[in-house]
């Protein structure tokens, strides 16, 4: 099975986000980057399928943020081929702009299966995964929690539903799946293997056309959510706070 995986970078939410001078998006100059969590799961799912059934995994990444670190880690994990898409934009492209960038590059890999993180927390103007499927003219299903081979030309995919339920889908290939989580957690890769990959890995480059922005959508302003102030913040040492929490539990009848 030939699998292509999309890799995107997003700002790390551990760091405080700042708003840019126009007030319409975040300031990437201040941001630290990491791989989009769902793309990391998509990569893991691709590697699991390859290990179970053979085939190849190609990672296709936009050259944005600290993508090289992520790609070296991907190489260390066992990705066979890595393609970077040059991109000089100051902000990450919107889903509609990104789909035409990725689509021809992914199509050139003639994949049986395209795995992409179902969402990124930067998305506002639709979601990238279904737009990519549309651009590739391939069927799509998203919020997938695990993929298994199901005979020649098919996979089984488990789609999230509320109450920890899942729908079992039979997917005829080629197809695009939006991954919520892989069958197993993303693997840890030792730093020594990443360092080795930095010496050995080769990144190809292929260009795609940047798509048009979403029609009729204008971000007027970005702002921090108004804090309702509903939570009463308990102050003091850990001992003080623990005592106050127990007092609250007693007053509210949580413990007797």
């Amino acid at each position, binding site marked *: 099975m030939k699998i292509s995986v999309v890799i995107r970078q997003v700002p790390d*939410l551990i760091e405080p986000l700042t708003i840019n001078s126009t007030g319409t998006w975040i300031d990437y100059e201040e941001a630290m980057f990491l791989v989009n969590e769902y793309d990391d799961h998509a990569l893991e799912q691709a590697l699991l399928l390859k290990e179970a059934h053979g085939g190849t995994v190609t990672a296709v990444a936009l050259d944005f943020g600290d993508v090289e670190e992520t790609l070296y880690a991907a190489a260390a994990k066992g990705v066979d081929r890595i393609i970077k898409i040059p991109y000089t934009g100051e902000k990450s492209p919107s889903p509609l702009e990104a789909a035409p960038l990725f689509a021809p590059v992914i199509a050139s890999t003639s994949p049986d299966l395209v795995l992409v993180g179902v969402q990124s927390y930067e998305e506002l103007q639709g979601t990238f995964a279904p737009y990519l499927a549309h651009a590739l003219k391939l069927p799509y299903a998203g919020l997938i929690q695990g993929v298994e081979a199901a005979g020649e030309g098919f996979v089984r995919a488990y789609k999230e539903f509320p109450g920890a339920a899942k729908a*079992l889908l039979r997917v005829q290939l080629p197809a695009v799946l939006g991954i919520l989580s892989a069958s197993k957690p993303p693997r840890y890769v030792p730093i020594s293997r990443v360092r080795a990959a930095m010496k050995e890995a080769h990144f190809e480059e292929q260009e795609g056309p940047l798509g048009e922005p979403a029609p009729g959508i204008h971000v007027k302003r970005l702002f921090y959510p108004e804090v309702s102030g509903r939570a009463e913040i308990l102050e003091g040492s850990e001992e003080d706070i623990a005592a106050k929490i127990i007092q609250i539990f007693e007053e*509210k009848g949580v413990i007797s």
Partner: protein
Amino acid sequence: MSARDIAVLAELHQEKIAPITYELLGCARALAEAAGGDVVAFLLGGHVEALAGQLAAADRIITVEDPALAGFSPEPYLNVLENLLQTETPRVVLLGSTTIGLDLASLVGARIQAPVVTGCTRLQLAGEQLTVLSHLYAGKMCAEVEVTRLPAICVMLPGSYRERKEGGRGQVEVRPCEAPLPAGAVTFEKMIFPEAGDIDITQQDILVAVGRGIKQQENIELAEELAEALGGAVCASRPVVDQGWLPTTRQVGKSGMTVKPKCYLALGISGAPEHQEGMKNSHLIVAINSDPKAPIYDIAHYGAVVDLMDLAPVLTEKLKARKNV
């Protein structure tokens, strides 16, 4: 239907109308009351006509039945929805930010070349201009978005609007499929429900919930000890379950369970909208998070901006000591 109408895609879960549908109807009614037009609900499924009467908050309910719509797979739903939008021409289309809505919104937006806005929490319609408030960056940022090209497809975060179950004309219109719908390349086979045997977190009075802040699997033990001291059970947000540290039956939020315990003690949970969806109606919410801007504090009753690794053992010891007095 006219180009002034507001359309809602009703959702089914286990053959019942899903709660998000009533929230979408609440939003649609608010838009229609402010800017005119009818509220029209699209109800798709294998056998759904009997459920149409439950959507009385809509002025019109259009039902489409077909065996290919009996379980959700995107292609048949997409074909029907595209057809309905082209014939009914609403100016705003509301879908839930759910496993169904997220699949369909951008696909149908791409097909009919309509703008799509995700993470919507508030909508305002004036003439041909729609103003949307959206959450992004896991609830750490909000955006005010102007949409000047209609129809627009809005993907609504659960909990954004009050449910509406009446207030419309409730006219039901059965729309037959001219030919059986093709199944598409993705076909629904069956639903799989979690195995019984684990604790049912929806029945617990006290829940100690862990999020990313727990950092390592070994640290789950801290939460388990605390839960034991409180007489409760441990649950988690999605990242912890994705790591395989707790089973899916312990997951709270959009992907997991909806809980309403007497007490929800959130340890290291930032409170992304998807998590809040599953626990915001808890009677007492106490949040421990070292980030003072964590969205969990917006819905918690009490909070402490400290490292849970420091506080949890102290709290456990105090609870144990209290029992022994």
